[in-house]
């Protein structure tokens, strides 16, 4: 797929002067015939955007999109990822919700730790193309999985810091991401971590309005969503962030259920059984499952987190614990996470240029073409299943 799709375009369409918009229209009464504008204004604007980029090779293809490497026509060294959304033949109601959400929110969010959407344009077959920041160094999941890569507490602090700032920014803009997990955290060429895949994102709902609980990839899904809560907050993303933190420390997913039910019970085993005492109102949630009082696990305290995550240090373990509170009202908010004193104490976070790296152009293609909530089926998944949480106590 090295051919540029633009090369074949009619030369009459501004290829000779890609950056000049021909908006002038004559009054039509002049004696000399003036050239007629060959497109409506809105189409001219779209063509202008499309002409800015050249598509190069295909990076990856998934259920939802095809991702190409591309560059600015004016500057061959400026790389971009062009994500062409596939038309979903089964969905008859127009553009799919994931595409709408992704475009809607990325158009509004501009932050160093959120993937940048440079442009959106349409091609003549009515496909939508998103021009995204090119992030060639893979994702955090790759780094976690790769046994050849060594990393330590300072690296984790750097990555978590970037994640926390990205999540804070989303929440500050009243946007819930709802699919935070290591393979949605992409790494830029300078080592910066960027939150990607906004296919499940939405704005905070007005008070008392319901949202769906079928969001967030299972292993990163908080207990309130597993219990079917329809009104929730940024706390859902903070839980996912906590799970990413734990996974960075352990290098395996911390709670990895095979089913939603299994996920709930694994969370209970790991962190404690939710009760009206430690989480007022939990028994009223739609999908709450009553527990056998004989098998209740007490709420885990600081000691547990320290024992379980020794590399985090006592302060790091305290931060992690605050992100994993079962009761979403007791969980840290994104601002509180950023204000924690773990960030300012030793070890200092690794500078971006010194972070462990891996090249992964192809991976970005895969990451961006997946549908929200999908899990990669890899050897890692099986490894996670073998985790024995009973032995950890």
């Amino acid at each position, binding site marked *: 797929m090295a051919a540029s799709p633009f090369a074949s375009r009619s030369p009459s369409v501004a290829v000779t002067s890609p950056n000049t918009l021909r908006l002038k229209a004559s009054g039509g009464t002049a004696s000399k015939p003036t050239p007629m504008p*060959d497109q409506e*204004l809105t189409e001219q604007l779209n*063509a202008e955007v499309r002409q800015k980029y050249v598509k190069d090779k295909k990076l990856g293809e998934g259920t939802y999109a095809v991702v190409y490497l591309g560059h600015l026509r004016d500057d061959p060294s400026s790389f971009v990822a062009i994500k062409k959304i596939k038309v979903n033949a089964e969905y008859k109601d127009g553009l799919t919700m994931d595409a709408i959400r992704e475009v*809607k929110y990325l158009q509004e969010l501009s932050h160093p730790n959120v993937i940048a959407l440079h442009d959106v344009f349409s091609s003549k077959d009515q496909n939508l193309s998103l021009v995204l920041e090119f992030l060639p160094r893979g994702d955090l999941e790759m780094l976690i999985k790769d046994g050849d890569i060594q990393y330590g507490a300072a690296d984790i602090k750097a990555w978590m810091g970037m994640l926390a700032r990205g999540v804070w920014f989303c929440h500050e803009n009243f946007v819930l991401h709802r699919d935070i997990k290591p393979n949605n955290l992409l790494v830029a060429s300078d080592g910066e971590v960027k939150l990607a895949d906004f296919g499940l994102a939405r704005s905070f709902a007005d008070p008392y309005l319901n949202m769906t609980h079928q969001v967030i990839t299972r292993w990163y899904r908080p207990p309130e969503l597993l219990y079917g809560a329809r009104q929730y907050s940024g706390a859902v993303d903070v839980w996912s962030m906590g799970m990413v933190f734990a996974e960075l420390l352990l290098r395996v997913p911390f709670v990895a259920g095979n089913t939603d039910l299994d996920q709930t019970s694994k969370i209970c085993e790991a962190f404690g059984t939710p009760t009206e005492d430690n989480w007022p109102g939990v028994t009223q949630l739609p999908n709450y499952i009553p527990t056998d009082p004989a098998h209740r696990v007490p709420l885990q305290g600081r000691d547990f987190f320290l024992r379980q995550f020794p590399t985090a240090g006592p302060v790091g373990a305290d931060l992690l614990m605050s992100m994993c509170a079962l009761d979403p009202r007791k969980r840290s908010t994104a601002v509180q996470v950023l204000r924690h004193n773990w960030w300012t104490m030793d070890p200092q976070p690794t500078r971006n240029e010194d972070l462990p790296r891996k090249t992964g152009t192809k991976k970005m293609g895969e990451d961006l073409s997946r549908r929200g909530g999908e899990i990669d089926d890899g050897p890692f998944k099986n490894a996670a299943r073998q985790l024995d949480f009973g032995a950890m106590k």
Partner: protein
Amino acid sequence: MIEDDIYRTSSQFRLWSYTRPALASLRTKTNDIASERVRAALQRARPAQQSTTPSAAGTPQPGSDGETKKPEEKQIECLTPEEELILVRYYCEKTLELGETYKPPLPTMVRATAIQYLHRFYLTNSPMTYHPKSIMACALFLATKTDNYYMSLRQFADGIPGETSTDDVISPEFLLMQGLRFTFDVRHPFRGLEGGVMELQAIAQGQAPPAPHIPNQTAQNLLQKLKSIAPPPIPSSSINDRIARAHGTTRETLKTAAQMTDAYFLYTPSQIWLSAFLLADKPLAEFYLDTKLGGPLTETIPDGDAMETDLKNPLYELRTKLFKVLTECSALLGAYTTLSSDPDQMKGLKRIAKKLYHCQNPEKINLKRDSGQPAVAGAADSGQVTSESESERLAKKRKLELEQKARSGASDMFGPELVAERTKQ
């Protein structure tokens, strides 16, 4: 990071905020381009139509040919930008009504988003090219998707009075999104109003925290001041009653005048709700602003002995600037009356609709996605590529449609009040 900084990164600010002259010139430009293309398209359609008549023996009622040809022979009169604006406004009002017909009615926010989509779409598209009637349902459906009010396309189409297929609703979606420049987020003034009203209620209960820039404020003196402001336009039984009344009136203005006018293009959401609030209850709104910005300069000069420089409200200039903007915006909102409730405006609208009937671009009527020739962004759009047979086909189709219309009378989505119009098939 302050709220203004966040607002300035929004697509609403970056792409959809204009000064009045910039807005006017963009509309003129859009109108110029569309007019020229309409004339050219009708020109192309004319010889085709003449040549088909003798050969097309099967064409029903060849006798009517003379009538349909006539208006095209004289110079085609296109809509002016002002006429286009009135037409679009009418369909914005219709969008509000359409949302009301659902059970339960679509949320105000969804309808408001759809209306803003229409306004934005018609900044770079002309009603002569795409009739608002064929775009409005699609805009409303798109808004249900972007504003998280899920309903299926089938369910949505069934809720539209009259015969509307799912295809009628969805076919212009891509075109619409292109016109929106793929920005779906609309920042509304409704949430700001709710926040302001909650603050006023807190003051009325003597529980308000002081404003950040005015440290000597206390809950008590705020309550005292609130009690001493000038009476409301309509007498009310209590402060709470007064706040509730102003709240209701403001909400209504935000639902109507703020949606139908250019307010969103010219002002920020907070400027819009504050302006609407000023219209509803001026003394109350001014009191609210003074809790944030301090009073006017004169009020801060007591008879006492302090130096005048100490007494100047440090936010005086900001306050003056803001009041100027709010006054302008209030005037815009206050001048609005619904088209359909005003017989004179309706008369003008009918004239425009008639005129549009003769200057609708015949090549853009079929928006169907599966119609071989994509209506959008395709090569078929550039005049040179459109084959002779294609324009012939379109001309024929148009004529047939006219005749069908004439026979069946206008059984339009929203009744016959706008004379018989050409609808998309």
